[in-house]
């Protein structure tokens, strides 16, 4: 029993950064913007979070800093692609490259220093409940934030008027513009939200998952988050499912190995990408499904005629 709980806890920690970054990117893409800079924003959040956490001694301030750094960094992307209408794919990629390099430079002084860890929230009494106690009431704060985020985003996109507007912009920015909706303003906010989420995911890495700073510590998680959005066909709850499936497969194979069952771990490492390709093939075969979920103006620059 103990081991099952431990496995589930490990899965939750592994899935949380994917989940947080992906839910942010989902909102961005729903608004019709493709930001491939998730990895870069995440690593900037990680170094910002670690740095502030280390310097102030407060992991909470670190977490806030991670969010702010991610949001500010995404602003760069927003100005380039939204105000200056640059190519989103190229700008996103350069944001990732910039983030990886810049974070390494900023973080030089933090290498080899023990960081601060965000404490687990232990809810008294409830944590002593059998089984669910530790799982539901004894996790780290970012875990709770990630679950709240899923609820919030799902509700916002599909239950509020603003969410509807955002989705309509993603489907056709020209029509939205014709209706008098301020396309660029919505997209700015969406991109910044995505940046904040990626930054939070980075903060989770350097303050919860592995409290330390080392270059490239995001190790491709931003890309998995991007894949996850497509895998989830732009639906919030499927992002949750996807993140936990990817996490479970990864942790499961580690346990299988430790148990002595030989598994092709190279194959399993590539599973998130394989699964995404399969999902892409499946949804592109079904026209109606594609129409329903894919933001139609995804990745297209919008230049309002003045």
């Amino acid at each position, binding site marked *: 029993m103990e081991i099952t709980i431990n496995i589930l806890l*490990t899965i939750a920690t*592994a899935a949380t950064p994917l989940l947080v970054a992906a839910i942010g990117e989902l909102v961005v893409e729903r608004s019709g913007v493709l930001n491939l800079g998730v990895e870069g924003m995440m690593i900037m959040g990680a170094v910002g979070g670690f740095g502030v956490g280390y310097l102030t001694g407060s992991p909470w301030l670190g977490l806030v800093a991670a969010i702010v750094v991610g949001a500010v960094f995404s602003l760069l992307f927003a100005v380039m692609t939204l105000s200056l209408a640059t190519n989103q794919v190229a700008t996103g990629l350069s944001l990732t490259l910039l983030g990886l390099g810049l974070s390494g430079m900023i973080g030089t002084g933090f290498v080899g220093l*023990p960081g601060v860890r965000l404490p687990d929230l232990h809810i008294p009494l409830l944590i002593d409940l059998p089984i669910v106690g530790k799982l539901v009431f004894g996790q780290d704060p970012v875990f709770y934030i990630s679950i709240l985020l899923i609820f919030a985003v799902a509700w916002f996109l599909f239950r509020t008027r603003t969410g509807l507007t955002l989705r309509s912009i993603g489907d056709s920015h020209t029509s939205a513009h014709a209706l008098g909706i301020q396309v660029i303003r919505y997209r700015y906010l969406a991109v910044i939200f995505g940046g904040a989420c990626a930054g939070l995911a980075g903060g989770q890495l350097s303050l919860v998952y*592995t409290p330390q700073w*080392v*270059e490239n510590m995001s190790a491709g998680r931003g890309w998995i988050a991007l894949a996850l959005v497509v895998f989830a066909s732009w639906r919030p709850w499927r992002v949750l499912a996807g993140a936990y499936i990817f996490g479970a497969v990864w942790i499961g194979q*580690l346990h299988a190995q*430790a148990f002595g069952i*030989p598994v092709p771990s190279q194959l399993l490492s590539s599973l998130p990408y394989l699964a995404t390709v399969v999902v892409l093939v499946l949804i592109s075969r079904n026209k109606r499904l594609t129409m329903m979920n894919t933001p139609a103006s995804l990745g297209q620059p919008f230049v309002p005629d003045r």
Partner: protein
Amino acid sequence: MKKLLIAMMTTAAALSMAVTAEAADKLKACWVYVGPIGDFGYSYQHDQGRLHAEKELGDKIETAYLENVSEGPDADRAFERLAREGCKIIFGTSFGFMDPMVKVAKKFPDIKFEHATGYKTSENLGVYNARFYEGRYVMGQIAAKMSKTGVAGYIVSFPIPEVVMGIDAFMLGAQSVNPDFKLKIVWVNSWFDPGKEADAAKALFDQGADIITQHTDSTAALQVAEERGLKGFGQSSDMIKFAPNAQLTSNTDNWGPYYVERLKAVLDGTWKTDNVWLGIKDGAVELSPFTNMPDDVKAMAEATKKKIADGWNPFTGPVFKQDGSQWLKDGEVADDGTLLGLNFYVKGVDDKLPQ
């Protein structure tokens, strides 16, 4: 305005020339790293070696480095650039730099090249390597003494001889204390992914290991050990700051003395191509202070370390392969060639080597 600009530019040009002229008197030594110097692992340690050389030799040398140079065609360019920029000796620190270095060394016969962990040499290209397995043998002994469950976890990256050598040496060390010692192995297919390393450590602990060691580069696994109140070993760098209550010792690379020795040789004109495999006795492999263990274990570890420093090889027979056949006869010592191409486990390792 324009005049001022021109004046400024001329001054700047003159200044930069002055810097070069002054630099010409010094020996310029350059390094090429495969990873970022901020990895707190392999490349970090090489860079510490560079800094050590700078400190020791003071103003006799000036140094430069390129980090994050990927193995392959990019490496050609990196080495050539450094050669053209006036480096008199260039250290390449990754196995995959081998062929690029051979090529560039041929082109610049007046420049000295040194390649870590390779095997191709020429007039102006030497190779150097460290016997990390010596430290791992000592760690294996400590693990067997310290473990209550009799099981250790071992996180590994890729099945190359260097890694297999480490696993085998660790296992032989452990078996010398407890013949029934068990070793659980998890492959993470990455040299460097703190998250995955932490997950692997958790999985190994959950399955009964109470000591962790790794042949990956981050401190993550050790931090998990610290959180759980269990024990583990550091890798490449001394990681005691990350795990003050968990780290037993760390297998540390110390390239500084070698770099100083070679640079001195260039300075006094005695540099010759070489092929060295340095170990504990040369100070290239260091075990950081033995901590968090009782005195008798510490004494045993110190004794073994001394024995190795005095020339004893952990791969001394009788040693059996995993399938039960005998590899080394009584008293037979494995030769370096076999070790450098090692591709099988010793008896008792409970894992199938990925091929």
